[in-house]
């Protein structure tokens, strides 16, 4: 049987909300021992975001359970120095520490990189913050959805020539969390070759800006400050979301060449448009894009969504249904992908939660359901740190393990 890629790697995970927990879900699925350090004194907001079957509680949030797979949980009340010492002992036995608190928060508990590297010289530590560890605005607070405004992404997201928009899916938390996996493993690879750890200072805004080169370079090269263009593309037309039969039902269609446009016209029974000088060539379609979109929309309305998707795909065109999340879950290819897992949770039982979006031909990913808060406290203290039952009982009594 294949060994897990990250067997033997331990992660002291101080992360919360979305980005860092998403990154450690990847690493846990690869076989790393992820120990999530949390506390009922200041619990992860996500633990109370929703409640299973309508009952809210620290161990009942479906959203929390969706993200915090493949890890153990220990509670440590870091306001108490003895709990800080236990956290340091865990870090001393870990390869990686990661966190996404406001700049300086962990240092207040003597758990900043400068503290931890003394007890674990080859530690790899990642701090994810809205704007990074230094600079005039380092101490700002923010979630991904608010931070992406700073990074420029909201400005280029919106209806054509209209106002800037927020983005769904709590973008960019999970995108940044995915990138974190790469950064952490690159640092680990370096440590494995040289014995040297390091500190990774991730600014969420900066990571987002690396994902918008078109708009940034247009400004940096040409001084052109791009605004939103809706669902359109500067080099394709039509490229948009069009209404289909039914209430709030839509189809996405992206046409990448004149040949593809002719096929689209055939399917929509508007073949004359394919030879009309106003639309036949890309340059003309881009120039007359509003009229083009009106004509296409007038035709797509007459079709049932999934039927039209099938027809367009039969012509090898890029088209897809605009899904609500619930519809994603019912898509046969999504079901077959195996991305939705059934995992057991100690309080709410077996529930469906997502796994990684990637599959590997020679790794059986290691999934376990999200832990209840502090579910593994005793086990970690006993097995990893060798604490006696008496000592653990005393620490509980003293509210250190809370």
């Amino acid at each position, binding site marked *: 049987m294949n*060994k*897990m890629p*990250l*067997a033997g790697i331990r992660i002291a995970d101080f992360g919360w909300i979305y980005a860092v927990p998403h990154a450690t879900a990847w690493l846990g699925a*690869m076989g790393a021992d992820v120990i999530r350090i949390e506390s009922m004194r200041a619990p992860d907001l996500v633990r109370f975001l*929703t409640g299973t079957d309508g009952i809210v509680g620290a161990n009942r949030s*479906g959203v929390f359970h969706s*993200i915090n797979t493949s890890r153990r949980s220990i509670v440590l009340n870091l306001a108490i120095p003895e709990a800080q010492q236990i956290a340091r002992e865990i870090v001393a036995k870990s390869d990686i520490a990661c966190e996404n608190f406001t700049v300086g928060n962990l240092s207040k508990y003597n758990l900043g990189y400068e503290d931890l590297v003394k007890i674990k010289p080859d530690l790899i530590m990642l701090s994810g913050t*809205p704007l990074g560890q230094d600079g005039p605005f380092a101490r*700002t*607070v923010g979630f991904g*959805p*608010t*931070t992406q*405004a*700073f990074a*420029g992404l*909201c*400005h*280029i*997201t919106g209806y054509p020539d209209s106002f*800037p928009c927020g*983005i769904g*899916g709590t*973008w960019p938390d999970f995108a940044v969390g995915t*990138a974190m*996996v790469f950064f952490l493993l*690159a640092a*680990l690879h*370096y440590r494995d070759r040289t014995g040297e750890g*390091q500190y990774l*200072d991730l600014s969420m805004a900066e*990571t987002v800006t*690396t*994902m*918008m080169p*078109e708009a940034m*370079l247009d*400004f*940096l090269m040409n001084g*052109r400050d*791009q605004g939103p263009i809706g*669902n359109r*593309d*500067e080099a394709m037309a039509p490229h948009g979301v069009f209404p289909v039969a039914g209430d709030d039902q839509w189809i*996405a269609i*992206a046409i*990448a060449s004149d040949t593809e446009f002719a096929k689209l016209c055939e399917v929509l029974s508007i073949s004359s448009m394919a030879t009309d000088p106003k639309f036949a060539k890309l340059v003309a379609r881009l120039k007359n894009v509003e009229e083009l979109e009106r004509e296409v929309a007038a035709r797509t309305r007459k079709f049932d969504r999934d039927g039209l998707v099938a027809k367009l795909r039969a012509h090898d065109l890029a*088209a897809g249904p*605009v*899904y*609500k999340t619930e519809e994603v879950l019912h898509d046969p*290819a999504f079901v077959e*992908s195996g991305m939705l897992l059934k995992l057991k949770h100690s309080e709410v039982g077996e*529930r*469906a939660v997502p796994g990684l979006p*990637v*599959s*590997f*031909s020679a790794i059986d990913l290691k999934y376990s359901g999200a832990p209840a808060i502090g579910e593994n406290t005793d086990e970690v203290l006993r097995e990893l740190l060798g604490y006696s039952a008496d000592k653990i009982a005393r620490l509980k009594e003293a509210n250190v393990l809370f």
Partner: protein
Amino acid sequence: MARFEEYREPQRALEGLKVVELPSLDTMPFLAASMAAKSFGDMGAEVIKVEPPRIGALERTLGPFRDEMPDPETGGLHLYLNTNKLGVTLDLARARGRELLFELLASADIVFNPNRPAPNEKLGIDWRTLVARFPKLIVVSLTFFGAESPYKNVRGGDLVATHMSGVGFETPWHQVIDPPNQPPLKLGGRQSDYLTGYTGAAAAMCALYGRIANGTGQHVDVSQWLAMIGMVRPNLGFYSHESHEAAAYKRLGVRVKSAGQWVYPCKDGWVSFSAGTERFWQGAKKAMEHPEWMDSELLQTVLGRAAHIDMIEAGLIDWLSTHTRAEAFEKAQAEHVPCFPVHSPADVAANEQYKARRFFIEHDHPAAREVRMPGAPCKFSRTPWRIVRGAPRLGEHNRKIFGERIGLSETELATLAAERVI
């Protein structure tokens, strides 16, 4: 006294790894493999970018271009996505082209392939063939829907993946006031291409650790569609935990306002603002100097506020109308409330925070002169991100790679060029 290591040339995290990037053969722009390979190159891996002879990689044809003059050697996207790469040309439709590709793969650790199974099979470079022939190689497929999916040969891309994932349906969600005339919206730029790139880079590192553990390479299947579905991860588990009657469950099915966390107009532009939690609500009260409307009985609980979001928005927009972006940012953040100015690309380029952290890098490219571009996506203290080599000219490293490394003679190279294999 400074230690010895401070005088050393900084090391790079992934030095020693060898990566091959294959070109996308689809007319639909798809830049995931380019982004994944860039991530490796920028961390020190050797990346050989394989491009079709004469036409080159697709990003060479996409803007922005300086002064809007299309030039395959100086386009912004090419300069940005191909930093730190060696460039070779190969016609993969020709048997000799594929032989040379196999020579490259024989000494590579990772190959990124952005093509669907059908074109790969036609060329004999599908993942099964590659994994069988090169047992140590990590073969990363980055495709629209996944190399093993029932949709494996369906064409997609940024727009389709965004809208089939649920992300598009939720955008711009809280700003939708007229659903029939405000269709679900994609994100600016090509977010799902770059997300897929980072996903592929992360997954390739996982597979590399799999090889360290077990001694063998493998196939890694990265789907742009599934990567985007991963962005609505909270929703995915929600359905198995809540009844259909739950308020949040219903909310996911309709595009209406339901929370005070988005972007709002202010005196000189727009800001993002969140008063979604009790703590932020209390902070917002202080920042806004306790306006009367915030004392309304309707707004004293999180649920009450969710039900009366219009009241909150009206009050917030009223306050913001007397504040600039900078003033709102400063006042809200002073009370620890998440609020940020909405920056345009020009604002980002001029921003003090980005400047202080030296995010944008200046780079003197032989063909494009001075170029400024986004730099490190994450700051590594010991192995800093840097540009060692600018984006290659088309076929710039043919002689170095096929000649010096593979050992073809000058005559053979000339013949291959004449036959347009390279």
